[in-house]
């Protein structure tokens, strides 16, 4: 296997605090990003994702640990000597230069011949479909166009790694969705490694080959979008990516990959899929996503089914919302435990009595493979 495009080895970054203390922005982070990969750092604000990116770019230096680009230890190499280029959240276009001058800037710094600069600027602007805009100033362009200029300006340098710091954050939702697909296509076309920082889980799922979920300066899980969504390894990841229902409880039995959990104060037992090493008596949470559980009106019909004797519980519907593709139902389990269930509207029904209504008494079925048992954080 070839060298990873970017490697972080036990990187720590500590910032001094105005009130005399210190902040551990990045706490012992290690990861490897492969060549040509679209890799996302995902997490809430203040989780250390931007600091990690800035350390790869060279704007910050690690307090301890090492950063390698293409196998080369970066140490205190300044940004202008690193084979990485950045697309800034604010774009940071040079307002006093034209679009063409902005894109040419990085090539001029390399002292390339004028003819080559002109050719490459032209190609870069064509790549982001801004050929006709070359003589305008950044202020004369829309937000989406400025974003493309920032992209062209960084990509024209043909970096080993392109670093993107929430590049779509300032765009409106519709444009953001378009740009997500466009960015992904562009990345596949140029084949450059992208390191993408975002707090938007939908964005990360749509574009990434792999995602690192971060919180409080640490990486909690690294995996493909499917792994991260389907098999979160802790409560934070399950909660941060998509929506889910949690039931806190205690492990009372283990059977291979399954665990039997007794949720607090409900007087029931739930069979679920054990994640990681669990022991009887351990505190856990069950995570069940709203689209992976369902309401059943006549559970007795299911008797004899391999799984149906377990994980069926009486619930009371307290609220429903029809949102077109599915119906979102809030139901109460036991006395007060709220659960969200998304029922897909895959039949064409107009009769309102066919839908659940407030006050309906019914049963909830949680398929055991959809109930992930996670160690309590």
């Amino acid at each position: 296997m070839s060298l990873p495009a970017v490697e972080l080895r036990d990187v720590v970054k500590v910032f001094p605090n105005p009130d005399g203390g210190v902040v551990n922005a990045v706490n012992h982070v290690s990861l490897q990003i492969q060549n040509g990969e679209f890799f996302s750092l995902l997490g809430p604000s203040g989780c250390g994702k931007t600091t990690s990116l800035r350390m790869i770019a060279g704007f910050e230096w690690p307090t301890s640990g090492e950063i390698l680009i293409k196998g080369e230890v970066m140490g205190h190499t300044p940004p202008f000597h690193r084979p990485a280029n950045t697309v800034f959240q604010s774009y940071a276009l040079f307002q006093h230069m034209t679009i063409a001058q902005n894109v040419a800037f990085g090539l001029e710094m390399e002292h390339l011949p004028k003819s080559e600069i002109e050719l490459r600027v032209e190609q870069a602007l064509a790549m982001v479909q801004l050929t006709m805009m070359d003589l305008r100033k950044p202020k004369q362009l829309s937000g989406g166009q400025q974003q493309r200029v920032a992209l062209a300006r960084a990509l024209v340098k043909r970096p080993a790694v392109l670093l993107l710091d929430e590049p779509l954050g300032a765009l409106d939702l519709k444009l953001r969705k378009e740009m997500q697909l466009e960015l992904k296509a562009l990345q596949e076309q140029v084949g450059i490694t992208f390191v993408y920082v975002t707090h938007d889980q939908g964005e990360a799922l749509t574009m990434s080959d792999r995602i690192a979920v971060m919180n409080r300066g640490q990486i909690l899980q690294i995996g493909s979008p499917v792994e991260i969504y389907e098999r979160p390894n802790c409560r934070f990841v399950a909660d941060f990516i998509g929506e889910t229902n949690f039931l806190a409880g205690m492990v009372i039995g283990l059977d291979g990959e399954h665990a039997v959990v007794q949720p607090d104060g409900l007087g029931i037992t739930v069979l679920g899929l054990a994640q990681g090493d669990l022991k009887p008596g351990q505190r856990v949470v069950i995570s069940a996503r709203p689209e992976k559980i369902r309401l059943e009106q006549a559970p007795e019909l299911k008797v004899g089914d391999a799984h149906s004797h377990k994980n069926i519980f009486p619930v009371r519907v307290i609220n429903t919302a029809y949102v077109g593709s599915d119906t979102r139902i809030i139901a109460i389990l036991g006395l007060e435990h709220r659960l969200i269930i998304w029922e897909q509207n895959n039949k064409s029904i107009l009769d309102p009595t066919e839908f659940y209504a407030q006050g309906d008494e019914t049963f909830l079925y949680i398929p055991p493979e959809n109930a992930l048992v996670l160690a309590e954080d």
Partner: protein
Amino acid sequence: MRQDPRAQGLTLISPTLFYLGVFMLFPLLLVVALSFMTRGPYGNVVYRINLDNYARLIDPLYLRILLYSLRVAFATTVFTIVIGFPLAYYIARVPVRQRNLLLFLILVPFWTNFIIRIYAWIMILRTEGLLNTLLLNLGIIQVPLDILYSPTAVLIGMVYEFLPFMVLPLYTSLEKIEMAQLEAAADLGAPPWRAFLRITLPLSVPGMIAGSILVFIPAMGMFVVPDLMGGAKTVLVGNLIRNQFLTARDWPFGAAASMLLLTLTLVVTLVYTRRAGFGEELLV
């Protein structure tokens, strides 16, 4: 009820028109009118319209004074940029709390009367003054320097007086430059000095232009500094005008010299701002 939009607009700007009319246009017209009159035998103004005052101004003596004033004002502007730029750059880069303190310190001298501050400079620069005493005691010089009452002293006084007018607009321009712009330059391969030449310097041009105008125009009319620090040797156009009004009591000739100064200042400022691109998107 519909109103004529033009009448409406006129009503809205009438306070401004009134202010400009009373405090700018009317006094200016008085000076213009005065410049075409004649001095009476006892220093009074005789209302006889002629061009004699302007004819007198063509004298090489006055033209030399005018040219010298231009040179002093230009040198003052250049020196305030050279000294003011590093200062403004430093202030724009320190943490916000220190920044406010430093800006405050720049403005503190304005609390003291200008004349008193000039006398303080006289104390520093004169033959037995602070500067000479210090240099003599340190053994750097053997004979006291004759700085006071020389063109150098005038320049020192002018640069001192006008420095804040250069520092403040320069600071405003420099402070507006986002850190991300310089990071982007570094990211694209520019070492700090190239980033300075390609990003910081061009983006500070609007402040430099504004500062130059604020320094150059009053420097052209300055008479207090040459009076007190230049001795009798240095006469600027400001002194000439002052002398005509107060000493020679020749108001019409003073008014004509004022008109010449006004015209010259306008032309220089216009040419300068045109060439520097003032009013284009530089000032965003």
